[in-house]
């Protein structure tokens, strides 16, 4: 019973990651891709947490914390890049 529920939630997370991947490939603008990458990181964190229950181990709980911090820094770097690039184009227009 528990295993069936956990496997179902794991496959739902995998489906969400696949949909976010579609948005990254298809997305019309760069912030769309940033949204997709952020969503992949969040779903990956949840998936690892469920996986650590399925495997009956605690060592993956470190991975959750590190992956959360790295994904946040990556998203912030990406938005900085988007914003600064647009400022350069804005000066070129004038």
């Amino acid at each position: 019973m528990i295993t069936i529920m956990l496997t179902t939630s794991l496959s739902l997370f995998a489906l969400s990651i696949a949909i976010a991947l579609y948005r990254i490939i298809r997305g019309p603008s760069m912030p769309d891709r940033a949204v997709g990458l952020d969503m992949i990181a969040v779903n990956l964190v949840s998936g690892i947490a469920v996986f650590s229950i399925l495997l009956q181990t605690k060592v993956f709980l470190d991975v959750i914390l590190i992956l959360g911090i790295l994904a946040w820094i990556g998203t912030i770097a990406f938005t900085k890049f988007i914003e600064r690039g647009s400022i350069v184009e804005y000066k070129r227009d004038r």
Partner: protein
Amino acid sequence: MNISAIDEFVAAFIILVGSMMSFLSAVGIIRFPDVYTRAHAATKSSTLAVLLTLSGVFLYFWLNESLISVRLLLGIIFVFITAPVSGHLILRAAYRSNVKLTETTSEDELKSALENKNNDE
């Protein structure tokens, strides 16, 4: 069904609800028309989904193995603080880089506010 099985069932049920929230936000990210509404779906319900899931895992390890995992608590607090911040940064970058709003938008309050600020200076 003894006590331990009920504990496991409650934790797994919370995790299942969290994964359903995540799937709903994925549906939102594929169906909404522009980046602002998509980020609305992606940040709010994804935050709820990851909070529910990590709380379920924390509950499972607490009730089953009587382990209060401080790392997991730190992860929950960290995600709860940083997910709205990253959503706000993405949307600010999108507005500054002139991403178009969808055609059904009725009002753009930030545009008139920015124009008023420029006129004052």
